[in-house]
């Protein structure tokens, strides 16, 4: 059998995937992906933010970013720490800024990173990338060569900042995994 074709999530993805955050009260008020690591998870708490920008540097305010990550010991669910879900969803504000409140993942394959998927109008197949902690090195960063810097976050305001540039100068490296 062949994989079903992807289609864009479109500009109104919020009502389906982040209904409560978009003003549509559903499911008892809780959106899927609202808690990556519950309060019982011990680890380095951190806010991770960034923008999604188009080829003209304009914010893609309609985009949604999903995060998937390991727990502080580098384990993924279902083998992760109690209360650790590992999955997050964030819409973007008018400036294209998304936000996750999480814990620093332990190293997987030698580095700490978030897997990110970006869905939006004009994106036919969700874009897959990684956000690495500063100072990381691994096989993926090595393969990215002189564009590896587009996969590494920067420290800012006590958290991390990671812009996702869909196109053009500084275009983020996207992955085919």
């Amino acid at each position, binding site marked *: 059998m062949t994989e079903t074709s992807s*289609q864009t999530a479109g500009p109104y993805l919020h009502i389906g995937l982040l209904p409560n955050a978009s003003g549509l009260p559903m499911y008892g008020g809780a959106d899927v992906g609202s808690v990556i690591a519950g309060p019982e998870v011990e680890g380095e708490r951190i806010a991770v933010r960034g923008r999604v920008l188009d080829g003209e540097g304009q914010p893609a305010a309609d985009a949604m970013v999903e995060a998937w990550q390991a727990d502080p010991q580098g384990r993924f669910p279902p083998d992760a720490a109690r209360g650790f879900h590992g999955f997050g969803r964030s819409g973007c504000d008018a400036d294209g800024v998304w936000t996750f409140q999480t814990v620093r993942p332990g190293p997987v394959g030698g580095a700490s990173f978030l897997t990110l998927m970006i*869905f939006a109008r004009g994106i036919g197949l969700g874009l897959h990338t990684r956000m690495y902690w500063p100072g990381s090195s691994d096989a993926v960063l090595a393969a990215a060569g002189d564009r590896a810097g587009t996969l590494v976050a920067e420290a800012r305001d006590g958290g991390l900042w990671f812009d996702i540039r869909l*196109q053009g100068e500084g275009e983020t490296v996207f992955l085919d995994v």
Partner: protein
Amino acid sequence: MTLSPRDRTVHPPALAPAYRSTALRAPRHAPLSMPSGPAEETGPVFGHDLIGGTDADLVHNFSGAPALGERIIVHGHLRDEAGRPVPDALVEVWQANAGGRYRHAKDGYLAPLDPNFGGCGRCMTDAEGRYAFRTIRPGAYPWPNGGNDWRPAHIHFSLFGHAFGQRLVTQMYFEGDPHVALCPIVQSVPDAAAIDRLVARLDMEGTVPFDARAYRFDLVLRGRAATPFEGRA
């Protein structure tokens, strides 16, 4: 559990000029190919207890009173490329109402909102990989793409398998809709057979007499090969 490589010939290319929104959002570089690892071969775990009693019933899950429109059941099978059922997988859907209007702050189409229709639902696949929703048939609607463009009636689907690398978001269309052939978003898929698989079929056997017609829409996620030699079927 290595993921089989994604067959990109059945997916829209990043740049599809007839779909104008891709112009500034399509990466210019080809994606960097790499083998899957733990980050792609694991995925979020959702329990059946996530799903509330009416979550999969879009006819009733907003206000409690029934929504306006043609009542339909949308159901099907979720499998992987090896043909194995994908049980316990989260399926989320969203759609316009019967008039073609979304309950979204940015949708200003002339068609009115239905006070009894929210437009989203979710369910989990059962032990055999089956899912089902009750909803109303969404309306077609015009959209800004530089000309007189109308989306075919469609339901958005978001799917999780058991690995984050299987993540898939797509749209389901309806058998017999002439807008399928005219839509630049649908036609960005470069394979006619693949487009045909996005079209749900009227399923008289699944119909609930005197209540709702049924449409069948089966979905396939990327395969997880048990060994590197067990590829796609």
